[in-house]
């Protein structure tokens, strides 16, 4: 007879691998088979985690076909089970898993839609801070150090070869199937929320680079350099003012130099 820690580890593996015989001898179930009864826990585990993924990735499921999504989710759960009880965090690795999942390789839109849907789910659990007033823009000029801008912590970014927002919106508006667009084109999407409302912004490369660098904590100097690398006419002052107008700025601050232009 194993100690409790070993028993629980063996049961967890049996449930995850759906191979119950190795641990069945430690269990009792009256006149029923312990292995058969243990399979109930495995069913509960897989079904509830699949339900969690289906709730987070509804349009991905539509694009992939329900049966295929079910299969992919099953494989994902077996390979990458959650390690903690906060299911709001489960699914973070699903887009990357789909991107590398051989049966999806010819359909990159599936993984890219999953990335969009994860960004939405992740954003809904992130805080929305009080926006800084436009008057704070003057503080940036007065900063002694390397000035930085803090953006809303719920701001998320997705890059795709497909018009994901349009497809996702069609689904939300009741489309029964998601049409595959004929021609891929790069779209850079920023997502934030205002209260319960999801706000999508499709933005050009320079602005996207600027926002993403700021969101990663880089000072304005580095973020602007990245933007200028994509558009030599990038208008820094106007772009900072735009961030204030969109209520995306939460603070201004001086930061130590965090990075270079690599």
């Amino acid at each position: 007879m194993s100690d409790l820690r070993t028993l629980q580890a063996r049961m967890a593996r049996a449930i995850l691998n759906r191979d119950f015989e190795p641990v069945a001898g430690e269990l009792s179930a009256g006149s029923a088979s312990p292995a058969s009864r243990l399979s109930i826990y495995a069913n509960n585990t897989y079904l509830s985690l699949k339900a969690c993924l289906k709730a987070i990735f509804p349009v991905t499921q539509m694009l992939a076909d329900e049966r295929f999504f079910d299969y992919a989710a099953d494989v994902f759960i077996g390979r990458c089970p959650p390690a903690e009880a906060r299911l709001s965090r489960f699914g973070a690795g699903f887009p990357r898993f789909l991107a590398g999942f051989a049966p999806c390789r010819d359909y990159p839109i599936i993984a890219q839609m999953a990335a969009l849907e994860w960004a939405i789910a992740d954003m809904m659990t992130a805080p929305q801070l009080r926006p800084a007033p436009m008057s704070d823009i003057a503080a940036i000029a007065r900063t002694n150090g390397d000035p930085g801008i803090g953006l809303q912590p719920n701001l998320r970014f997705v890059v795709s070869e497909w018009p994901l927002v349009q497809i996702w919106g069609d689904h939300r508006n009741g489309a029964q199937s998601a049409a595959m667009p004929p021609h891929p084109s790069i779209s850079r999407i920023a997502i934030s929320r205002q209260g319960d409302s999801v706000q999508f912004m499709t933005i050009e490369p320079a602005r996207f680079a600027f926002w993403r660098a700021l969101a990663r904590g880089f000072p304005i100097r580095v973020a602007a350099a990245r933007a200028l690398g994509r558009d030599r006419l990038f208008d820094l002052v106007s772009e900072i003012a735009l961030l204030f107008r969109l209520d995306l700025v939460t603070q201004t601050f001086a930061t130590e130099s965090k990075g270079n232009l690599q």
Partner: protein
Amino acid sequence: MPAQYYPTGLPEVAGIGLRSQHVRGIEERRPSVGWLEVHAENYMADGVSEQALDRIRSNYAVSMHGVGLSIGSAGGVSQAHLERLVEVCRRYEPAMVSEHLCWSIGDGVYLNDLLPVPHDEEALAVVADNILRVQDALKRPILIENLATYVGFARSTMSEPEFLAALVRRTGCGLLLDINNVFVSARNMGFDARQYIAKLPGHAIGEIHLAGHVENQTPDGKVLIDNHGSRVPQSVWSLYADTIQLIGRRPTLIEWDSDLPPLDVLLGEAMWADLLAGAVDLHSGSADIAWPAERRPAPEKKHRSAAPYANRNVSLILQDAAHV
């Protein structure tokens, strides 16, 4: 019947579980229901759900029900998860905190199910240590809920009521008696549900759960599955009435987690729980409960899957920031 029982701070009436699909209905209608139970793990961030509960709790007493502490884990309770629970309780100031007599994390994997522990001295020491650690962190006692079980352990040396009574003595915790779970486990494991309840320390029971279950046919015969996806069946109502006769009224929750019905169905079940408990009190121990000949289900409308943004006030603002 003891004059006093485990103090919870919850009103001695029926409450319902707060689910995201019903948040808007609760906020807009503010229905008359005794209290709300929330799952702690759904409120461990600072997003839309947390802000909604900030508003709702000003109108309702809240019971914080954990489903992920894994209090039966031989590896101990996760410090990170415990700290999050402490923060959730600080933010929402729940009237009561409860968890399950179970484990769900083994070998580094979270199984998202509630697995039973053996009823022996080793497990008793593990669970008691974990409960004490949680209570120390929260600076308050918690209630421990009995599971619906499908397997037992060859190594068990005591019954579950004996195990729970020992936990109460060792840790000062109270009990959350899930009557549907007792019914399901009794049928699956072959024991008498009423005797099980009679052996529990009644004074320690601070809250009751009621829920529905389904019966599955397997090659081994019939097995009851605790699915929280249907109305409380008459067999469970009957066991509830017997329990109230035995221990007196308690704050009672209608649990419904899957295939969620409209809010009114939950409110109806809660009302029925109050009526039944009142009738048992009125008859002062008599089992002469007037069951309706047939309780017709209210019209049920299926809800869509519960995406994080489903049924929220999500309006899509498709815009190009360049034109702002």
